[in-house]
């Protein structure tokens, strides 16, 4: 091996860079340095996730259990966030509510990613009439108020947890589909795809092994923001009373609180505050990622 080659090998050998996952982590750590918003969002979210995980350890009542305290007790040591109309401990339910929000957010985004990627990929890769038709549908779906559609679906199909996740998932695919199509259109034209066709790879392999790994990074920040939207939609549905009564939900707590705004401010204040913090965290994280990944924005 020539001297130059050995040198290159030495650079290439910076261990962690070899693995994509670690590479991402490395990039992420660089993002921390240059982007305070990203850092703030990351820390907020880390705390929120930890709270959701350890909820059973740091609460002292079962979730949703009624009459653990005197109804309408304002915040006291035993009930830091107060007690609601049915004697449920708000602190407990808020912590379990974080779990619900995050579960709904992540699961429904997985659903919408699956649908959106499928539609975007088919449209972007195959083109032609299929693409025109799919993009027409996508444009329509983008204009129809997604919140109302999700509301109607859950109202008609039944107010349970799965239906809420599925409904939010199937109304929020259009943005992802549009983005995916754009990515596919541009990656499809790159020479390594032609090279892949030249060695006779199947369409399936070209789509999943060649294009998709190159298209995914672009939609990650978007997916983060989409989690956010999903959490807000779930809360909004809950606020209007569309929720699974057997699952603690921050939105549903605000719905209950609405009737007692004059009497018990804490019933509205704490669930909404925590909800806002989750959403702020995710927004900061998503915006930070977009800014970091887009050098044109970063320069300013």
């Amino acid at each position, binding site marked *: 091996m020539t001297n*130059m*080659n050995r040198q*290159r*090998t030495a*650079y*290439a050998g910076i261990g962690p860079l*070899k693995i*994509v996952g670690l590479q991402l982590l490395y990039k992420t750590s660089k993002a921390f340095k240059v982007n305070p918003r990203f850092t703030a969002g990351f820390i907020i979210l880390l705390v929120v996730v930890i709270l959701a995980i350890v909820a059973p350890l740091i609460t002292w009542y079962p979730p949703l259990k009624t009459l653990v305290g005197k109804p309408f007790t304002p915040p006291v040591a035993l009930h830091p966030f107060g007690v609601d109309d049915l004697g449920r401990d708000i602190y407990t339910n808020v912590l379990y509510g974080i779990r619900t929000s995050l579960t709904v957010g992540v699961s429904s985004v997985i659903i919408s990613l699956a649908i959106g990627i499928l539609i975007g990929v088919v449209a972007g890769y195959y083109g032609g009439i299929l693409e025109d038709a799919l993009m027409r549908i996508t444009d329509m779906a983008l204009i129809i108020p997604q919140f109302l559609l999700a509301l109607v679906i859950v109202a008609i199909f039944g107010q349970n947890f799965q239906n809420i996740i599925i409904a939010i998932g199937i109304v929020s695919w259009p943005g992802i589909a549009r983005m995916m199509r754009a990515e596919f259109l541009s990656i499809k034209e*790159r*020479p*390594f795809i*032609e*090279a*892949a*066709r*030249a*060695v*006779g*790879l*199947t369409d399936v*392999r070209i789509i999943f*092994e*060649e294009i998709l*790994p*190159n298209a995914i990074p672009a939609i990650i920040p978007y997916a983060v923001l989409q989690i956010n939207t999903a959490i807000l939609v779930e809360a909004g549905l809950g606020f209007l009373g569309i929720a699974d009564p057997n699952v603690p939900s921050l939105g549903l707590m605000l719905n209950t609180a609405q009737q007692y705004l004059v009497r018990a401010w804490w019933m509205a204040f704490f669930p909404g505050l925590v909800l806002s913090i989750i959403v702020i965290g995710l927004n900061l994280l998503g915006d930070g990622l977009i800014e970091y990944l887009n050098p044109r924005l970063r320069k300013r």
Partner: protein
Amino acid sequence: MGTHPLLKVENVKKYFPVGRAVFGRSKQYVKAVDDVSFTIDVGGSLGIVGESGSGKTTLAKVILRLLEPTSGKVYLDGVDLFSLNNKELRKLRPKMQMIFQDPMASLNPRRKIMHIIGQVFKTHTSIGDVEIRERVVDLLEKVGLTPPELFLDRYPHELSGGQRQRVCIARAIALNPKLLIADEPVSALDVSVRGQIVKLLLEIYEKHIDEIAYIVISHDIALIKSLCKDTLVMYLGRVVEKGEVRRIIEEPLHPYSQMLISSIPVPDPEIARNRKRIPIGGEIPSLINPPKGCYFHPRCPYVMDRCREKTPSLINVDDRLVSCYLYSE
């Protein structure tokens, strides 16, 4: 040396429509490849030379059906390529391979070398993962990436330009192609490694001379001379001269060939001084509205009236074919 034609190209045309079709007005076309025919025997090697925009790469891609032809026929080992459906074509692809201009761009940046080469076997053979690995290791050794184990888990961006081109070559020869097209195989590389890649290509050629045919595409006729026996000279999608490379360099017949040859730097100043120099004049005309008659006439120092009227056909002159009125009658 075998003598039956391995590749037969007949009147291949590739026109690209320009702009949108507007009602009542006929579409305009760019004639990227216009009526090209040639054959290559087993063991044959053909260069295609011309300036950028002459349709060399388009021709190669049409032959491999990476682009759909406008008309014409291509036979590989007797099989009519343009009549195959997608599935049949895909099965045949390993037999006709291409090495692309830019090795960096033609390797997936997010895949390791092992995957990039291994997927060829995964798609076209039923051999298991362990054997695939062995085959990939063999290939890497064959293209001079040693020790091969060091490269398997690398990403393209971790390699040098020459190493990347070696990976591309390994991928192309993975399933013993009968036809290998190299499109500007060294132009994206540092000058220092060009020689090594040329040597590697020659090695592979000589090792498989009984079964393979080569096409090398380049703007550089000197490179073609070191890799091929015969060459086509292309200008604006048409063949203007065809013959042995050595002969064309010694005595170019078509004025365009003369122009190309005179632009080769010659190491010996003595020869250089005595050589007839034809200055490259003018610009390549627009492909959308090419000039009438011989496409070269606006730049040709020997232009005659009839050059402006009608395209000269390819005629036999001595040991080659040339399309120029200077040699008719």
